[in-house]
């Protein structure tokens, strides 16, 4: 796997989690108590033996840069002798109005790709909740001598969750017969995931030919429009999988972690999910705490009642406060007798004594960071 470069393409069109992506890009949205969304893809790559990871950012990347630091938490030190983590930001500033697709961003870093010594690239997005063994798909890709190999998932939920997602049709050998585009619909439940392998030479070729035609989007303009000329294969993705591209899905997948089977599948198999450790003490339960069916990160101090919720680090729940079916991001403070139900509180929110925050099950209320209620 040393000759595969991992590219995490943090795309602007993913910044669709409303309040949660006002001031951060999707990759650094906190998830699952201890993590940020990008941890899942980064850990999958590292656990599979990839040692050279590129994070392609576009905007609002301050919190992401701050979080990734030198990559050490994922064993990807920037200062590893010849490998490690590289964060590529655009070398020209595009007003987002003129941003016409990720090709522009790939192209502005094309020298980086040309210079690197890896033979193949694995390109993914940053908003996937997964724990993947990538060696399987790379081996499959090499065995079939494909030009491009996609991961796919055959799943009712995924089709339902994301009607705009592309479906595909594959032959018995795994060759992709048809990749959905525009209005012609493909039957079945096989959904294309934006995780794919190809040679670096082909990537550079696709970037350059797209630029000649006036930029565009790598997946859409580079690959799908060209599918007749490319030998495309697909490989099934295993394990827990979620693609977070709406608040509803963020909420749904967060609460899915409250089933211990999902918790174990996602966090332990095939490898651990790594995250940047905060130096925090364990969580403390005080006299009178009543916490059931919930996931809690470190350094929370709990005096009140919590049901069916996810609490990030350093959340304080005071006496007689009540949290139900909610996601509470780091360092938020829920004061005495406050009530929170069907809500997502971004970090450092303070809910004052006796106040009520209440959303609906199908439409959780989202409170932006540092709000005082």
């Amino acid at each position: 796997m040393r000759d595969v470069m991992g590219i995490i393409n943090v795309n602007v069109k993913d910044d669709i989690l409303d309040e949660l992506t006002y001031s951060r890009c999707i990759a650094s949205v906190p998830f699952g108590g201890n993590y940020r969304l990008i941890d899942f893809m980064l850990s999958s790559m590292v656990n599979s033996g990839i040692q050279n990871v590129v994070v392609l950012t576009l905007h609002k990347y301050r919190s992401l840069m701050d979080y990734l630091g030198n990559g050490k938490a994922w064993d990807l030190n920037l200062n590893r002798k010849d490998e490690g983590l590289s964060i590529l930001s655009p070398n020209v500033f595009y007003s987002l109005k003129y941003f016409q697709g990720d090709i522009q961003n790939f192209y502005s870093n094309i020298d980086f790709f040309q210079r690197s010594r890896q033979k193949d690239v694995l390109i993914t997005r940053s908003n996937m909740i997964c724990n993947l063994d990538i060696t399987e798909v790379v081996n499959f890709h090499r065995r079939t001598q494909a030009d491009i190999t996609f991961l796919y998932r055959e799943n009712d939920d995924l089709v339902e969750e994301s009607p705009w997602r592309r479906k595909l049709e594959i032959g018995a050998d795994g060759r992709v017969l048809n990749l959905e585009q525009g209005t012609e619909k493909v039957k079945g439940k096989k959904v294309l995931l934006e995780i794919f392998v190809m040679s670096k030479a082909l990537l550079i070729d696709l970037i350059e030919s797209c630029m000649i035609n006036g930029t565009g989007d790598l997946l859409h303009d580079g690959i799908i429009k060209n599918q007749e000329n490319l030998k495309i294969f697909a490989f099934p993705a295993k394990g827990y999988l979620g693609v977070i591209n709406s608040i509803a899905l963020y909420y749904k997948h967060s609460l899915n972690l409250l089933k211990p089977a999902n918790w174990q599948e996602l966090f332990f198999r095939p490898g651990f999910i790594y995250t940047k450790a905060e130096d925090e003490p364990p969580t403390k339960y005080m006299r009178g705490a009543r916490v059931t069916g919930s996931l809690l990160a470190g350094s929370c101090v709990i005096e009140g009642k919590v049901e069916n919720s996810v609490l990030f680090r350093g959340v304080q729940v005071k006496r007689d406060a009540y949290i139900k079916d909610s996601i509470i991001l780091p360092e938020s403070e829920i004061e005495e007798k406050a009530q929170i139900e069907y809500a997502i509180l971004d970090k450092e929110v303070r809910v004052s004594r006796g106040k009520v925050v209440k959303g609906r099950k199908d439409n959780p209320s989202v409170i932006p960071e540092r709000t005082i209620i």
Partner: protein
Amino acid sequence: MNRKKECVAMLLAGGEGKRLGFLTRETAKPAIPFGGKYRIIDFTLSNCTNSGIVDTVGALTQYKPLILNSHIGNGSPWDLDRKKGGISLLPPFVRGKGGKWYKGTADAVFQNMNFLEQYNPRYVLIISGDHIYKMDYSLLLDYHKSKEAEVTIAVIEVPWEETSRFGILNMAEDGRITEFQEKPKNPKNNLASMGIYLFDFDILKKYLQKDQKYPKSSNDFGKDVLPLMLKNKCRMFAYPFRGYWKDVGTIESLWETNMDLLQDKPTLDLYERNWRIYTVSSNQPPHYLGPAAKVEQSMVSDGCLVFGEVNRSVLFPGVYVGENTIIRDSLIMSNVKIGSNVKIIRAIIAENSIVGNGSQICCQDNEAGEIILIKENSTIPDNSIINSTDNLKKVIFESGGKFT
């Protein structure tokens, strides 16, 4: 090359901790797990980081150092991975005419004089990896300077009835030390030495050399070097420390010190923002409390899955607690798996042990009896009844369980 440092710390981390039973069979006392995610030595190392005056530490190891060495690593959790200085592990070593083990605390420092000389510090701070406390060493250094002392010893008030367990210091009004009383029956006051000494380097060097010349000396700071200095009328001062300080020397004190953390407002506050305790991260997911879990007055670490009831207890990372299980007044260390319908009261279950369904681990006298210690990697079979450490072996052997 100028490597001169104002202050270098020598951290005594070779202690065996004989009174800690099984817990120190495979590891040195400073590496014993504490407070959910820490090891005892983290407190001293974090004090170095937080004090801001010590960026060079020599860790003197001797007894079973494997876990301790891998825990300390390159020192990065405590910001001690430095270009100049940082942390160095200093185990005993062989030299031209054979080598020898560290005989006493003073001997350990003496044998590493080369280490100290390469930094040529003005001051040397002697600290121990056996204590649970938060202390700003920069205040100790200020005090030392203001008294123009040659050595300053940190002291703490202990209860009068416990003075016979400590080295007691008597001093003049200005803080100058006039007398040592080692474990006195009739103490003149209740100020005990904390085993933290700040020396002028040249004085330290001089007296360590002197001490080596006495063949009968046990080469210990408390027993030999400091009394010798007093005899020679050195300027020795006592620095009164106020705050939490515990020497975790026995199973009971290890248990008690952990229980102290569970009070509503503990004297030693792990949640204080400006004096964090740093450690090596376990990299586990958040913990999960099941639909029928009930956890109160307890600390729970990452990676735990709890379906039962936990009261006044500390769960270390990766612990599993089954349904209808009751855990009270106990320490459950990393990766212990406890089945369902289990009752555990006043016990310490060491790492990676497995407690079978329906077992009971509690002494007959629930509230004040002995603390039952289950050693690491034990397998307690289903439905075992363990009511004292003595019958523990019997129970395990009779039912064919593993007890290595």
